[in-house]
């Protein structure tokens, strides 16, 4: 099979795009590691990143990360078979629960990141 098989159908392109989301997400987390490491530079030398290039990089990574989250949480109803008191929870309820969990986690993390700032 030619290595370009995935360009034939939109469905295949979206699948490969989803697989590729790991690259920008890994790149952003590596930046995050650098940001943690830079805290050891001392107060005089510490300058947070704020260049336009960094913001554009983050916007691209955010788009890929959100696409990964959306597709993952949407699939949760198919992947996860949840049983509650002997009855299988309907996939729609599982998906709704996962999206609610995403919203709660996002709010809590945003609150910590913003709340502990000055």
């Amino acid at each position, binding site marked *: 099979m030619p290595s370009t098989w995935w360009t034939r159908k939109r469905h295949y392109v979206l699948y490969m795009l989803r697989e590729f989301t790991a690259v920008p997400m890994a790149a952003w987390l590596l930046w995050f590691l650098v940001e943690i490491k830079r805290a050891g530079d001392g107060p005089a030398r510490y300058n947070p990143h704020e260049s336009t290039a960094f913001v554009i*990089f983050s916007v691209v990574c955010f788009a890929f990360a959100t696409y*990964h989250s959306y597709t993952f949480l949407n699939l949760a109803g198919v992947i996860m078979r949840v049983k509650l008191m002997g009855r299988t929870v309907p996939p729609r309820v599982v998906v709704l629960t996962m999206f609610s969990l995403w919203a709660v986690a996002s709010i809590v993390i945003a609150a910590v990141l913003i709340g502990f700032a000055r």
Partner: protein
Amino acid sequence: MSAMSTMSTETKTPHKPALAHLFWWFLFANGGGLTALVLPVHILVQGILGPLKIVPVVDRHYDTWVQVLGNPLVKLYLLVLISLAFFHFAHRLRYFVVDLGFHQAKGTPAQVIFYGGAVVVTLVTVWILLTTVPISLG
């Protein structure tokens, strides 16, 4: 006796649990789940809203960043997040490379490179978290 032992070998073989597969799959699945739930908000707040000065963010200021990074729970959270994410990425990227037609990525050397990479990132993360800011309970 010999027939019984043959039978027992035959019946046991197909049920041998793929423990290595289970181990990588566990890390892959949980890494995927955790990054799906928490990574977008980190990127949005720390990578976009903070640098654009729309909201104050903890890592924009040395004092607050060091204070938060000293918290042991934050260190544990960051270790779990970064480590699991990279095990997820390693598994995903290995199959991405296979899908692109490079079937060598299924082999053991490729597994050592991809999962070994995740192990290296984990060790570097542990080193950074332990050496950058001392643990502080205050």
